[in-house]
């Protein structure tokens, strides 16, 4: 349940940052900083028990939302990156705690992971297509 809430928070924060930065053209820094600031104020107020964790997740996802449109062309890409951020956050909760930049590193790893998966899938599809074209077909086989 907690993991699901963390992933959902990551998706909302990541997508919000992406939309503010790209659709509203406010720039990645203002988008991420405003999402971070708002989540830092709102989450501890509305979720007294899990608020601290959720605000950190939201900040982490907002760093992922700073990805450029070239690397994440659609909202689906951003949703996938945010989901990976949420999952990675739960897995690495105790690693390098207290080191500034840890959340950004999680965001960067998530971006690289999704870009890698997407590129691999594209390459595999292309290879399958070219393989199908190269197969000899016809009555002479």
């Amino acid at each position, binding site marked *: 349940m907690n993991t699901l809430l963390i992933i959902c928070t990551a998706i909302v924060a990541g997508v919000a940052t992406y939309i503010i930065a790209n659709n509203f053209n*406010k*720039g*990645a*820094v*203002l988008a*991420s*900083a*405003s*999402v*971070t*600031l*708002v*989540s*830092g*104020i709102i989450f501890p107020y509305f979720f007294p028990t899990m608020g601290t964790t959720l*605000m*950190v997740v939201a*900040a982490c996802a907002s*760093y*992922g*939302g*700073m*990805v*450029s449109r*070239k*690397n*994440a062309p659609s909202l689906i890409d951003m949703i996938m*990156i945010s989901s990976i951020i949420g999952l990675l956050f739960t897995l690495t909760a105790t690693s*390098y*705690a*207290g*080191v*500034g*930049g*840890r*959340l*950004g*590193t*999680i*965001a*960067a*790893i*998530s*971006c*690289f992971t999704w870009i890698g998966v997407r590129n691999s899938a594209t390459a595999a599809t292309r290879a399958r297509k070219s393989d199908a074209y190269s197969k000899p077909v016809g009555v002479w086989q």
Partner: protein
Amino acid sequence: MTLDKSKIRILFLAIGSTSLTWMLNHHFGLGPIVASGLVGVIAALFIPGALAGIAYTSSFVGMSSLAVLPSLIIALLGGLIVGIVIIATTEVYAGIGGKGGTTAAAAALVTKAITGLIG
């Protein structure tokens, strides 16, 4: 690496942003998320383009706990190191979300190592 005017500006901005975030985080007790968010919003509103990104990246170092940056002097050192890392890695992985945080994490760990060596 030669130190021209723009690089000196980046170093001063990084030091200022890191120490301001550290002060808001630990001295004024706002916590790392609100401190960094506040510095980021101020930077985005009042500092032009790329320099705002540098200020925001530097603010991530200021989010470190007292175990990593125990005093303002060490936070200033952290700011100097993140400034150097930013200058050295400007072109690397541009456009990847979290690049700034990774830069900051590297700088924070280097700062921690240096303070550990000094004692």
